[in-house]
Each structure stands twice: as structure tokens, then as C-alpha cells.
């Protein structure tokens, strides 16, 4: 469903250039949740934007259901639901207006929009605040609304960029439970998160990014055998520590 091939991106800023994503490849199939993990600034967000066609890669490409995001970004966007921590809501619209706006943008008919909003309201318990102005919503409510917004067109692919950032335990539990639901509905999902315990539970496979490079990839069992560590947290700490100690030394991808 999702196929990432040798994706690379360098940012130029004045005299500075920054290699944000460096030759990353992986695939995600239907019904799979792929955990894209890494410290801040590892290049996760850049990668997601390239997958969505929001940024043009310098090298390589991302393919969703046979459409390359650099060539047919609109086709790709129709098939992807995108949620990010920073994805805000329109302050002066109500939740219902926002959902219906996006429904229309994705080309749904009015009756489809109504039934879809009803369905999402049920699952994500939006009913209590759907007619409120978005400016008045809590962080958790906003994030549920964002998730509903990303699902309004029932996309086969979900890209979730730290969807639980800033949420309390209960709030993030709602989101993770819903990711389970999506998995059951055989969506292909890429999940970026720092909630490693939750990720460990919900994700089928993982990719660990650092400084734009894919340093570890595989199922939890594979990662355990490669690193000799028992859980993601330990692997993560190792990864960052190693980098801090050997900042100058180029690190090879372990499984690449």
C-alpha cells in the first residue's frame, strides 16, 4: 500500500544546508501499523510531508496505492488521512462546519457527509462539542476532531504524526484504541510517536530514524535480536547515546 523508495531531502537555508532525510526506504501493507520512531529532528515530519506530496523529495519517491506523491499529489492526498500534532482546527468554525468543509473538499456528497459525520461522532464521541466553535475546545477534543477530519473521506492510508502530543493519558488512550480499530479495518498506517510503550503495543513493525537515516528497521522481535535490548525505550536511549558519544563517526544502518 505504501512504498517508500530511497527518499532524500536536503534543506537549503541561506548558506546552510541540512540533510533532513537521507536515502530512506520501507513499505507498509494493509492492516499494518508502521511505527516511525526517532528523536526530535530525526526527519520524521519531513518524511511524512514528502509521502503526502507536500514537499518534493530531492531523490527517491513515495508511492501510495500505485500513485507517486511527487507526480500525482492529488491522487495521493485523496487516499491519505493525515493527522499531526500541530494540525490545528479552524477557530471560527464549529466542529461540524469543519468536518463538512473537508468532506466537500474531498468530494463527498452532502448525504455522505452527514452519514460520515454521524458515524465518526459515534466512534470518537464528538457529539458533546460538535456544534461548538473550535476555539473553545480542549486539546483532547481538538485532536479527536482532527482525527475525524482525517477520516472523513475514509482513506485507505493513515499518516499520524504524533497524534497524542499534549494529550493526557486518557486522551491518548482514546487515540490508540482508535488506531486499533483502524488496523482492524485493514488500513495501512504510519505512526510517528514518542509514546514508545503504546507504540510497542499497537505497531506491527518499526523504523528508527536518526539524523535523517534509517538506523533500525523490523518487527519488535527482529529489533530485539539485532540490538539485544528488550524494549523500544532501551533501543531508543542507546541510539541517542551512541550518537552523542560518537557524533563525528558516520553510523551505518543496521538493517538496511
Amino acid at each position, binding site marked *: 500500500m505504501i512504498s517508500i523508495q530511497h527518499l532524500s531531502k*536536503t*534543506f537549503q*537555508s*541561506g*548558506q*546552510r*544546508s*541540512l*540533510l533532513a532525510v537521507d536515502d530512506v526506504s520501507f513499505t507498509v501493507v*494493509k492492516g499494518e501499523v508502521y511505527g516511525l520512531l526517532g528523536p526530535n529532528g530525526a526527519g520524521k515530519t519531513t518524511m511524512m*510531508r514528502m509521502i*503526502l506530496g*507536500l*514537499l*518534493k523529495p530531492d531523490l527517491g519517491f513515495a508511492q501510495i*496505492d500505485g500513485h507517486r506523491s511527487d507526480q*500525482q*499529489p*492529488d*491522487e495521493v*492526498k*485523496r*487516499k*491519505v488521512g*493525515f493527522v*499531526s500534532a*500541530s*494540525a*490545528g*482546527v*479552524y*477557530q*471560527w*468554525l464549529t466542529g461540524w*462546519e469543519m468536518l463538512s*468543509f*473537508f468532506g*466537500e*473538499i*474531498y*468530494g*463527498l*456528497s452532502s448525504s*455522505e457527509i452527514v452519514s460520515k459525520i454521524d458515524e465518526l461522532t459515534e466512534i470518537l464521541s464528538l457529539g458533546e462539542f460538535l456544534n461548538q466553535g473550535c476555539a473553545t475546545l480542549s486539546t483532547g477534543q481538538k485532536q479527536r476532531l*482532527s482525527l475525524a*477530519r482525517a477520516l472523513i*473521506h*475514509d482513506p*485507505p492510508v493513515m499518516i499520524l504524526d504524533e497524534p497524542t502530543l499534549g494529550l493526557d493519558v486518557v486522551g491518548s488512550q482514546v487515540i490508540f484504541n482508535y488506531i486499533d480499530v483502524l488496523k482492524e479495518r*485493514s488500513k495501512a498506517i504510519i505512526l510517528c510517536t514518542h509514546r514508545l510503550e503504546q507504540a510497542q503495543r499497537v505497531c506491527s513493525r518499526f523504523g528508527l530514524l536518526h539524523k535523517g537515516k534509517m538506523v533500525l528497521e523490523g518487527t519488535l522481535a527482529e529489533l530485539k535480536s539485532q540490538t539485544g535490548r528488550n524494549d523500544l525505550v532501551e533501543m531508543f536511549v542507546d541510539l541517542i547515546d551512541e550518537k552523542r558519544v560518537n557524533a563525528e563517526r558516520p553510523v551505518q544502518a543496521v538493517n538496511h
Partner: protein
Amino acid sequence: MTESLPPEKSDERGAAGVASVPGVRRRKYRLRRLVLKELRETLRDRRTIVTLILMPLLVYPALSLVFKTYLLSNIGLVPTDEPISFRIAYSGDTSDADVSTAFEQIVAGIQGATRNNSTDAGVDGVPGEAAASESLGEVVQPGGGKAIPNQEQFVPIHRHSWIPVSQTSDDTVERLVELGVADVGLYLSREERRAWQVGDLRIVARNDVFSETAANYLASKFKLLNEFDIQQRLKKVGLPDGAVIKVSSLIVGPESEPKSSFPLASLVPLVLVLMTITGAVYPAIDLTAGERERGTLETLMAAPVPRFGILFSKFLAVLTVAILTAVLNLIGMFATIWAFQLDKQFGGGMFNATVMFQIFLLLILFAAFFSALLLAVTSFAKSFKEAQVYLIPIILLSLGPGLMAMAPGMSLDGVYSVVPMMNILLLARDVIIGEVVVIPAVIAVLSTLTYAFLAIQLAAWIFGSDGILNAGSGSFAEMFLRPIKVNRVVPIFATLFCLVLLFPINFASIGYLGRLPAETVGDLQYRYLLMGLFTFIAFMVVPWAVAKHQNTNIKTGFGLNPPRIIFLVAGVLIGISLWTIVMSLTSGWHEVYGYLFGAEKQDAWHHRLVEVATAQLERISQISPLVILICFSIIPAICEEWFFRGMLFRSLLKTKAVWKAVLISAVVFGAFHTLSNSAIAIDRLIPSTLVGIMLGYLAYKSDSILPGIILHSLNNAIVIFLAYYEPSLSELPWFPDKDAPIPLSWVAGGALISAVGVALIWSAKRPIVETEEVELDSNTMIEAV
């Protein structure tokens, strides 16, 4: 997955890339949806509402109060429904007893009539008579009592006092008026004295609004006197039957621009334009930088809508708010003008529905341009605050042309018809005073449309760039970091920095040089050498220092390679011949100017150019030819080539196609020559740009600025020495007359020689240029930071 998609979507997918009818309809529908969403968002925001509704409600009444109490009293104008007092100086010529008596009787007649009629006002059954007598009747005698405001359809009612002048000369009356002792003067016209049988009166006014009001008032009084049972009245004052008082008027004192008495006509468009800007600013920031800050922009872009569609919907939303603001302001302003009767002072009828509609159309045009400009700037910003910081200079800058358009004596022609904002303001003023000239008006509208289009393109370009989502990518400060590796050419931003510096340095040096004494030949030589020094600093030293700072190789950065001989030959050929084409182009442009703005403007403009040229020629004619050669040929050639074809062109060439680099550097070169003479010399734009294109092409093919320096210095030397030696040259039989156009044979010969030069450049091969780029290693760069 596919089965869950709604049927329409499948259709659409099938039609991907094909402009099918449903696809087009859907796109239109989607654009409408986008615009509606943007508008809904903006219009629900109370900050928009504040600028949209409260401002016009509060600003105009406040403004009009200020206008009424301060501005009007300052220019000596008060509304006509309140009585004003003025002093009339009058003189009868005592040398002619009959005349004198008659005149005094006329004066006494007015006074008497007013006295008499004030008691029996309106007793007659005839309406006209009654009205006229009433109106006359309300005039109050010297130092008199209150005037009763009524009968507005006739003449306004004022009080006045008389200053009798018994001197023999009528000049005294004029002098009194001119000095301001009297507001208006009255005497029997001297020229027509011989024929004087009846009442030839001359009204003397000063050239100010107050005095003119008084004169108009007196004239209207006499008119009434004539119209209204004149026989009877004249009999009363002892004049023959059927006599008519002939009234003529005379303005004394310095002349002033007639348009200066219309500050309201200039002020109205400026206030409307500024308010329209105010209305557009908030939505422009909120819908771009604001959305970006809140993270909704990314969400929107993750939807299958093309970026241009998103931008365009934002543009339409901002434009709609701007137009709404304009409408509300227009209504508020005209309502205020109407309510406070401000239009009366400026000749009623100025503000009618047609004028309002035309002003409204102009405001839409302006709003389209400014909304696009605002979006281009705010799209660049990452946050609301940053956008505000960017907008402040834009708004301050736009005040410049706004205030310039307010200046008296400004007219919509020449360069002003293409200056953004200013052209619309001048055109709006012309619409209000009813003096629109078609061609400049069309130029103003077309140029503003062009600017709007360019601004939308710019906004779309910024909006389409990766940086639109890339919040963390760099700051301006990073631009000025010193790179570690050697650059082959100066980075473009550093070049632009030099370009930006050129203008203030240039203006400062012109200002400074203008203050130096210019009395002796020594003074002048010193001045010109100093001018050369400033040119050297601005065009050579500063770029050199910036290039050094940017770790740029000077030889490659400025094109100092030794050129092949063929290019030097071509440079010489073009250098000695191109001036003929340039000069004929300049005179051709004069004709175009005349066609566009009328023969009168053309003459005025030509006259000014000749004046400037003559003054300059007068100065340089005393200076030694060596100094002239250095200051007008060698220094400008070397310095300008160093910057324009060296630094700028080569920086551009790194990222731009050759023709674009040539064209951009040539236009900048042309623009600089347009601005360099302390005044705007628009006639130099096209010729200088063409020379710039030639020089750019030569610099590209030869990969060196040296042939260009030769071309440039020869060209300048010939032009300046033709002027310098003109007095002795003109004695030669074959030399054309000073004011005559260049002979066609000269132009043809020049064109031929230039063509040979161009052919040489074209046929010669460009040397192989090393273009290896300096690889920027991300790690080393970041460490360097």
C-alpha cells in the same frame, strides 16, 4: 479500500488529468467552497469586524470634524451657511466728476438698496422679485447686525465693511487687496472709461479662496442688481434708462495652482485607499501566516486541492474583505461629506453617484493589487508577528506615493501614471474633480492590473515553494554567515544586498555634492572627481568587500578573465556606434511620450530636459577634457561594469537562464540610470536597458567584463564629448544642428557598425567556463554555524 469510496470520487479518479466537464465543475465548486470557508473564518473574527465596521463609523465623523475646524479655517474657508465678514476697498476716480459720482451712487445704491429692502422684503407679489429683494435685503451694512440665513438658492448672505479709497490711482485698490488690507476691491474699469456710460465695474480679488469667495459674492450681488428690476434701481441712482452694470474681475497677487484649492479631492482617495489597506491587512495575515501558525495550513494542503487553488481562494477572500471595507468606507465617507456639507466648498456635484461608482471601481482595482501584494508578503512569514513586522515597512512605503499624490501640482502623466498606488490616487482625484485624461487613465489602470497580476504570481510562487510549510528553515541572519568554502560567484542575496545599498549611497552622494560650492572651475572639478570617488566606492569597493566577506573568488566573481581579442574588437565597434541608435531611440521615446500625454506635456517635459542638459553642459564646458574623460567615461564604465555585468550578472547566471540573467541585469541597469539624476528621468530607461542587454550579451559570450568596459567607456566618451565640443563642432558644415534629430545616415551607419560588432560576438565561441559548484557539506556547515 476502493469499494468504500463514494462513486463521484471514482469518476474523478478516472478523469484525472483530463479536463472533463464534471472535473471543471468540481474544481469551481471546490474553489467556491474554499472561498466560503475563508470568508466565514474571517468574517466571524471580531478583529475583522472592528476594522470593517467600527472604523468607518468612527473615523469619518472624527475626520470631518478635524477637517471642518482645522483645515477649512486654515485655508480661509468656512461653510457658506454661516455669514462671513469681509472688507471691500472701493475707489471712484475723482478726476472725472461724472464717473466718480456715478460710482459712488452705485455703491450707495447697493448699500441703499440693501437698507431699503431689508424693511420691505418680499412684499411684492412676484416670486422672483420677492426672492431677489429678500436676498439683497439680507446684506448687512457696514459693521451691521446679524444676517438671517434664508433663501439658500440665491446668493449666500454675508456681512461686509467698506474701505473707501479716495486716491487718484486705481492701483491703490489693487495694492490694498494684494496686501490683504482689503479682502476684495471694487473700481470703475479704467480701460473702458471712455465708453463708460453705464456701470463698468471691476472686482479685484487676491489669489486665495477667501478673497475669491468675497469676489464671487460681490459679483453675484451685481448680477442680482442687474437682473432684478434694474431700470427702476438705476433710475434711483441716477443712471440712464436701460443701463446695465458690466462687471469684470481681476485677480491680483501671486498665481497659484488652481488645483491646490481642492485638498478634499486628493484627501478623499487617500483616506479611502488607506482604509482599504487597513481592511485587507488583517485577513491577509490571518489566512496565511495565521493559518500556518495554527497548523491548519498543513491540514488544508494535505487535502487534494492544488496550492494555487488554496492561494487563490485566500486572495478572493482577502479581496472580498477589502472591497467590503472599501464599500463601507465609501458610504461612510460620502455620508459624512454630505452630512457636514463639506462638498459645498468644493463645488457641489463633485460627489455624485457616477463619481462614487468610478471611485469604487478604482478601489476594487487597487484592492486586487494590494491584496495580492499582502498575501505575497504574509505567505513568506511563519507567524502572525513576523507577518506584521514585514507589513509595517510595506505600509509605510505605500504612504510615500500616497502623500506624493497629495502634493499640489501633481498630475497623472509620465512616470506617475505607472507608479503603483500613486496612479490610482491621482486618477481618483481626477475623477472627483472631473478632469480625467483618457490615455494616462488607461495606462494607470493597465499598469495596476499588471502589478496585481505580478503580485499574484509572486504570492503563488512563494506559496508553492517548499518553505511554506517548513517553519524552521533559517532566518535572515543566516544569510550573512560567512561560508567556509570559496564561492565561484557572489551569492545572489549578497549581490542584492549591494544593490539595495547602491540607492542610499547614490542619493546621499548626490545630496552631498549638491551642497558643495560650484562657483569656480576648481570647485566643479573637485565636485566631479568626488562624484567619481563615490561611484567608485558604491559600485566597486562595497561589492568587493561583500564578495570578500562571502569568500568569493574575485576573478571569477567579477569576470576579470582576459578576453579573446575578437570580443575587444566587437566592444570597440559597438562602443563607437551604439550611441546613434540610443540617441534616436531617445527622441523616438519623446514622440511616444507626446502621443501618450499630449503635446503640451511633451513640450514641458522636453523643455525641462533641455534645461537640465544645458545647465550641466554649461558647467562641464569649463572643465578640462581630461577630468571629463575620467569622470564621465572611464570611472562609470569600469565601476558599472564591475557591478552590473560583474557581480550582478554573474550571480544571476548561476541560477537563471542566460536570457533571464541578461534581461534582469539590463533592466536593473536601466532603472538605475533612470533614478541616478536625482530626478526621475524615465526617458533613459529603455535606451539604457538596451545598452545593458548589449553589455550583458558581450559579458556572457566573452566571460569577462573587460570588453564591456571598453564598449561602455567609448559610448560614454562619445556622447559627452559631442556635447562638450558642440560649439566648435557645430561650425562644421556637415554637423547637424543642435536641435535637429540625428541624420538618418548616421543612424544607419551606426547600426551597421554595431551589427558587425554583434555578429562578431555571435560568431565567437564562449570560452569553456568551469562551473563546478562548491559542495556544501551539511555537517561542516552546521558546525560552522
